[in-house]
């Protein structure tokens, strides 16, 4: 019933607006079209300047309301993230100046040079100097932004430091899996054709390096202050590892492993204090549409102190034991590490150019 009422009201409003508009057309014919056109011109010129003023106030007000909700306030939680924030500030400053200057000119010119009986438009078809000016000045500013951007880009996408903690991340519909390389610091080989039952990642347990690898779901612990390198896979469709607090992001593509690395600056507990939010967690969002459960694909990253992290690792058991429960006692004895061979296998799954 309320729906019908609502529809009726909307239709009534439509009809009223339409009737007024039609009437105004008749009035303008009666009054003389030229005269009413001039009147409309004045009204709209005035509205343009009103729009400019309200718009500027709106920009300020919107910033007041929402700046506190952006990630700037809490700061970046990774080393590289701080540089990204600095770059964001610089870019906002440069584009902000251009934005306000051009918008103010646009609406101010429109208002100031509205049609007047005694005004004649100034015939000004071109001016080479001016045109050169606004070709070169933007080009110079853009060069600065590009130089900054590329410097950080190469740093971010460059090789991870040698001492990085390596963790494998696998996305699937609709969740995240993590694999720690274990004591040998080498992730065992995988083959998607081996995916079966409890071996949900398709780990090749014929590879000795896989025997001490540990598999956890949804939540991953990492140590603070040390570079962490994610080796990223997807099982079914493209997902994306989105880490807004660390200012990092990388697609998870089936068949093409990718990597990203960052150095977390604050533990989860420290961030709770920094943000003043006792429920704060580092969330990992899927940022590439992956099906109906895309929005539920939430991973948690717990940043621990070094001791907490080691303590946590000690509680994990190798995946080998859960896939082959009968092998559990003494399974680690057979695990030998052939470092050259397994390193090659790791290199094989890294994308070229990274």
């Amino acid at each position, binding site marked *: 019933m309320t729906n019908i009422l609502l529809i009726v009201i909307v239709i009534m409003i439509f009809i009223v607006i339409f009737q007024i508009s039609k009437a105004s057309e008749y009035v303008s014919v009666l009054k003389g079209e030229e005269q009413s056109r001039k009147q409309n011109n004045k009204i709209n010129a005035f509205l343009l300047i009103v729009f400019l003023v309200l718009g500027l106030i709106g920009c300020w007000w919107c910033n007041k309301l929402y700046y506190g909700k952006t990630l700037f306030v809490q700061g970046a939680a990774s080393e590289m993230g701080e540089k990204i924030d600095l770059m964001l500030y610089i870019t906002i400053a440069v584009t902000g100046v251009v934005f306000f200057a051009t918008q103010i000119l646009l609406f101010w010119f429109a208002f100031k040079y509205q049609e007047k009986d005694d005004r004649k438009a100034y015939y000004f078809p071109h001016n080479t100097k001016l045109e050169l000016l606004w070709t070169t000045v933007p080009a110079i500013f853009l060069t600065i932004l590009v130089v900054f951007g590329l410097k950080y880009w190469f740093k971010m996408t460059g090789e991870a430091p040698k001492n990085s903690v390596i963790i494998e991340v696998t996305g699937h519909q609709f969740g995240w899996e993590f694999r720690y390389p274990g004591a040998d610091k080498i992730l065992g080989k995988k083959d998607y054709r081996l995916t079966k039952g409890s071996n949900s990642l398709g780990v090749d347990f014929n590879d000795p390096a896989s025997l001490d690898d540990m598999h956890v779901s949804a939540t991953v612990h990492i140590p603070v202050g040390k570079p962490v390198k994610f080796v990223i896979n997807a099982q079914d469709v493209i997902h994306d590892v989105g880490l807004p607090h660390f200012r990092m992001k990388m697609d998870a593509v089936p068949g093409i492993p990718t990597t990203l690395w960052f150095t977390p600056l604050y533990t989860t507990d420290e961030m709770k204090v920094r943000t003043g939010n006792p429920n704060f967690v580092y969330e990992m969002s899927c940022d590439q549409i992956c099906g109906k459960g*895309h929005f539920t694909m939430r991973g948690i990253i717990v940043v621990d102190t070094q001791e907490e992290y080691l303590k946590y690792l000690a509680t994990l058991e190798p995946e080998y034991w859960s896939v082959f429960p009968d092998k559990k006692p003494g399974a680690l004895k057979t695990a030998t590490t052939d470092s050259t061979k397994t390193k090659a296998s790791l290199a094989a799954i890294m994308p070229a150019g990274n």
Partner: protein
Amino acid sequence: MSNTATVQTAQEAEVHGVHHDAHHEHHEHHETFISKYVFSQDHKMIARQFLITGMIWAIIGGLFSVLFRLQLGYPNSTFPWLEDLLGHWAKGGKLQPEFYYALVTMHGTILVFFVLTAGLSGTFANFLIPLQIGARDMASPMLNMLSYWFFFLASIIMFSSLFVQTGPASGGWTIYPPLSALGDASSGSKIGMDLWLASMAMFVVSSLLGGLNYITTILNMRTKGMSMTRMPLTIWALFFTAVLGVLSFPVLLSGAILLLFDRNLGTSFFLSDIVVNGKILPNEGGSAILFQHLFWFLGHPEVYIILLPAMGMSSEIISVNSRKPIFGYMAMVGSLFAIAILAFLVWAHHMFVTGLNPFLGAFFVLLTLLIAVPSAIKVFNWLTTLWRANIRFTPAMLFAIGFVSLFISGGLTGIFLGNSALDIHLHDTYFVVAHFHIVMGVASFMGMFAGVYHWFPKMYGRFLNNTLGYIHFWVTIAGAYLIFWPMHYEGLAGMPRRYYDFSNWESFKMFGGLNEFISFVALIVFAVQLLFVFNFFYSIFKGRKVKDLNPWGANTLEWTTPIRPGHGNWVGEIPEVYRGAYDYGKDGREFIPQTEPIGENESHH
């Protein structure tokens, strides 16, 4: 262009014209309803067909956005009438996630391709090219007609996909495989996806037939004296648009066909190492990223296919209503050219987080930010055109000014996203949503509305209601900023796009109030668009009649035709052109039409 070539072209045009006159008179009495309104070969009728089909699609696409904005704005509410409307897709009055994604996908597809490509350049390229260059019709009226009917076929197929049981495509308008390739991964990737691809194939055919025609017509059928550098900027923009389309749409077609093969014939172009729903797929060796290269090789030029016509029309309308020449005509042409070239060289900036080689990425950063230079030239030239002008604020002029304002706002955020280091943080967040909706969505709509208000008198011999036009403009531009400006803040908080519900996310749930506000404004803006649609159809039949041949006091050739031109456009000979399109305010005269010979004492510039 050399003199001989000009003469030759003019002769051709004349021959063509004479031929058409005879043709025209001969057929006058035999014109049936079918040949006049349905299978018409008159470019003006085809333009109207494109426009009205585009408007119908815009209403559908806009309605979809209102529906999914309901979910985003009011995630905890139920709307029982939704179930009445959508059945099991809105069980219990709440949109189901599958259908939410289908709506998002179809909204993007419809608005990008069917409204802002076909509806925009389809309409105005068809309508304006022959009228503004002085031709009786397109080079091939027959292909032109087919172009519309292939678009119609594409529309029918896409529309039918809305009614299949498993729903329309739901993997986003970019349809990245493997999601779009595997029916097991998403119900929208079942038959709905095949229909999407088939429809898009038809759409590409339509766009190629149209584009080749536009290029040929512009190059070969200009009237005597209409050298390339005397053409209005609308024609230049439509020319580059057509070139972009002809060179890039086939690449989309190739991607679509390969995807169809992967879906139905067991090939592995885009598939490798996949386990879906516990099923181990045999496909190996394909690259999911390859599709993205193919898609964005079209997808990025597509952005300019949408934007350039709006730029061209806004340039024309701003100049006419400022009563001043467009500032820096040659720079405007040059910057259009630069944008058209660069459009092909930046596609991978959509792929900075795919694991792309960073060295390669660096080139795309450089080339992407380079686009800001011609864009800046255009903005400053528009501003200078307004400077010391004598401006008439017709609804068309207001929309053109709105276009410039939105182009600035949306263009500047492109500098953030084109810089790969920043893009990593902002990629696929609401910052991107805000950016492209402002710069190519609403801005292009502003250009399109400007065009409709400006050329409606030529299309239908009547005016649109001015008061409704003013209401339409003010609500639309205010609404556009209210909707999309705050989204930048959501993006800077890392809030991902294409999420059905944020309430489980500690990092993103604080924007609930803002999302509600945005949805509410979107609803109002949509309602006002309906007001425009009403104005449009009402004015076709009941609008104030045009009494003056040249109601805006414009220089271009379309205003030398009769108020309601028949097939062939000019009754007698096609007028000859003696000057560029922008002699406004020259030598103390308000405007000098292109058909007026250069006076003896006229000043040179």
